[in-house]
């Protein structure tokens, strides 16, 4: 992972981390006083829970915390000992199975009153079901999930249409059922917690999401056109944890502060890596900076200035409410957030003035990306090892420096 000195790090990232710690402690306190607490997968129902004032932790974020604390191997072993598949998605379950708060990140999570899981992947519902059993709490199966049975080829330039024309990109009959899925959940939460759902509050939350993503876009655009890059990729990705508070005033305010700090850096000429000579886009599934980042910066001045997660934030979350129906608008986003298409990734790379995209890829992906006009540096794995460095060196020296 790329190291960075204190004066290069964005102030806002520390404020966000501090807020997250404060949030979990407050949540623990609320739960101890009898309030509900929920666990769900990302993009399944967070806004609904936020609107109902039910604190929720998103499984993706919890797993990122476990990984950041370098506890992944420990918890994967816990799963292996019990004959379960050792997968990243099940690390939260492993923390609960292990039941050692002293060992666990944040001292573990407070006991949830509900765990919500969908059918996004074969295993999600099963793992979440087992997790609820481990806690002795309710498991709520969502019958639909993000990308439920996507049936169509992504139309070119879909990412420019998803905010305002989302209704053209999802199947209406599925959306009808997805809305019903949420209505069932809302009703259950109202009955079991006594909390109320409000369409007016959801409208407000959706507008806050849009505002938050607009600030994200403004910051991203500043970073894109400024060389050397004013914010390290590590800091940019660190802001992603604000995603889990989207639709709240706090979420919007963090992104506003982020934008203002980036703007200040641009105006004062502060750079994350002053020796920037080559700009790269890093693409991976977990939203983590490249482990070889520091090596590439020092050897070639090659800096990863953007990441596919930035595109997710900027292009994919904002939605224009249609027919005065925020729940249907939200449900549509819970069905289709994005397609990882080469034209979208390449558009982001071009926007950020990147000379190449870097990702772990095989020949099918390489061929698809070459058609976009942005070179793709295919590396064999995410490890910072000889094979990765050799692949990158070869690419940079033959494709970018020759």
């Amino acid at each position: 992972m790329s190291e960075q000195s204190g004066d290069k790090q964005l102030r806002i990232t520390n404020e966000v981390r501090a807020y997250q710690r404060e949030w979990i402690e407050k949540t623990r306190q609320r739960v101890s006083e009898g309030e509900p607490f929920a666990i769900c997968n990302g993009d399944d129902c967070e806004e609904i829970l936020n609107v109902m004032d039910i604190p929720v932790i998103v499984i993706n974020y919890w797993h990122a915390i476990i990984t950041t604390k370098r506890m992944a191997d420990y918890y994967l072993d816990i799963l292996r000992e019990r004959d379960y598949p050792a997968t990243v998605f099940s690390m939260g379950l492993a923390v609960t199975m292990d039941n050692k708060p002293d060992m666990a990140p944040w001292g573990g999570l407070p006991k949830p009153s509900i765990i919500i899981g969908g059918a996004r992947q074969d295993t999600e519902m099963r793992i979440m079901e087992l997790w609820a059993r481990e806690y002795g709490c309710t498991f709520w199966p969502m019958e639909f999930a993000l990308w439920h049975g996507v049936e169509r080829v992504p139309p070119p330039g879909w990412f420019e249409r998803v905010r305002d024309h989302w209704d053209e990109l999802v199947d209406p009959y599925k959306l009808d059922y997805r809305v019903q899925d949420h209505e069932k959940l809302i009703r259950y939460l109202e009955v079991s917690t006594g909390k109320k759902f409000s369409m007016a509050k959801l409208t407000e939350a959706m507008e806050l999401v849009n505002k938050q993503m607009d600030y994200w876009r403004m910051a991203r655009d500043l970073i894109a056109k400024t060389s050397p890059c004013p914010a390290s990729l590590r800091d940019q990705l660190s802001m992603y944890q604000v995603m889990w508070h989207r639709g709240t005033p706090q979420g919007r305010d963090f992104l506003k502060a982020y934008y203002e700090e980036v703007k200040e850096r641009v105006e004062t000429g502060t750079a994350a890596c002053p020796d920037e000579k080559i700009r790269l886009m890093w693409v991976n599934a977990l939203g983590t900076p490249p482990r070889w980042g520091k090596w590439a910066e020092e050897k070639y001045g090659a800096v990863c200035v953007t990441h596919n997660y930035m595109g997710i934030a900027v292009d994919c979350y904002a939605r224009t409410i249609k027919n005065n129906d925020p729940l249907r608008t939200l449900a549509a986003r819970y069905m289709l957030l994005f397609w990882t298409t080469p034209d979208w990734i390449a558009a982001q790379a071009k926007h950020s003035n990147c000379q190449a995209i870097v990702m772990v890829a095989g020949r099918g992906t390489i061929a698809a990306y070459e058609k976009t006009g942005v070179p793709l540096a295919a590396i064999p794995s995410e490890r910072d090892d000889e094979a990765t460095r050799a692949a990158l060196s070869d690419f940079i020296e033959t494709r970018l420096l020759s």
Partner: protein
Amino acid sequence: MAAFDELQKHYHQRDLAARQWKKEGGKVVGYFCDNVPEEFILAAGLFPLRLSGDPWGDAERAGPYSEQGNVFSREGFVASMLHMILNGKYDFLDYLIIPHARDSIHRLYTTLINLKETESALKLPELYYLDNLHTNFYSAGIYNRDRWLALKKQLEEWIGKEITNERLSQAIAVTNESKRLLKELADLRVADPSLVAGVDALQIIGSSMFMPKKEHNKLLKEYLAGAGHLPVRNGARLFIEGSPLDNLQLYEIIESCRATVVAEDNCWGNRNFDVPIDMSADPVDAVIDRYNNKAPCSRMYPLSCRVEYCLRSALESEAQGVIFSIYRFDEIQAWETPDEIKAFKENGIPALYLKDQPYLITEPEALKTNIEEFVQGI
């Protein structure tokens, strides 16, 4: 037995009957998994052919589409099927129905629709995606019902006429007859002593998905009529749980260890036919009810329905031991296994857990040694 020889021939030459049907002017509908109502296809006068893979074959054509994550997981099984579609092995298919089953099957669909757009030279059948939900709640049943009705409508468009209730009732009668006869076969397997090898049973069950049902029924009746002459089988009685088995490798090894596979929980085995269709109800509703309420695959919620089904099936077969065989990357199957092993332990039935199995068994001797030790311990 001549009947068994014919059934065996169709198990090994899986496209034989479908190609003949096509040659005679008929149309063939390929499908994956066991949740596509073949009664609708039969009633439309089309040939339903369940697609399978080939562990001994290549999977090279699937390679470029398998690189991100375990796109075609289950260790080669789905990759093999994709390869066979892309290399022309299934070039006689007119239509291909791909259900929303496991992730790898869904990805196979998205890969094919993308290829249809980008590689126009590639000869692919017309694709139909059959969505469904993975719970057994009433609301899921309503959604699934609409999807199955939409499939029926699509079939009607393909053939240019309505599928009448009369035609559907006739198709149901044929598939119910198939299920009844296969249940008789299952009874011969669980008899004490067992009369049918698991290897033979898999071929008889499998061939029902590769040849005209009426012809299969006729041959199976002949086979069952001669069952009184089948030699009794001694040795350990085993139940097999795990990943889809569209080939005989595992059963051949097991049954070379003085054991008989008396039953299994597998969509290429007993699970394929174990719920008949109610002939007294409206035929469309009856088909839909059957597919909503059929024996659950491992993707279904809740876990308890899987564990109960697996345990009940094993207990009914009076198995003395259970072998779990799970393909590498078949995670959903692996997630239910610890609970199932626990349930067997509580019922005093020993279990052998074969993890991370390859689609093509490349080290049969090591596997045999492992199974022999387990069988000796029973």
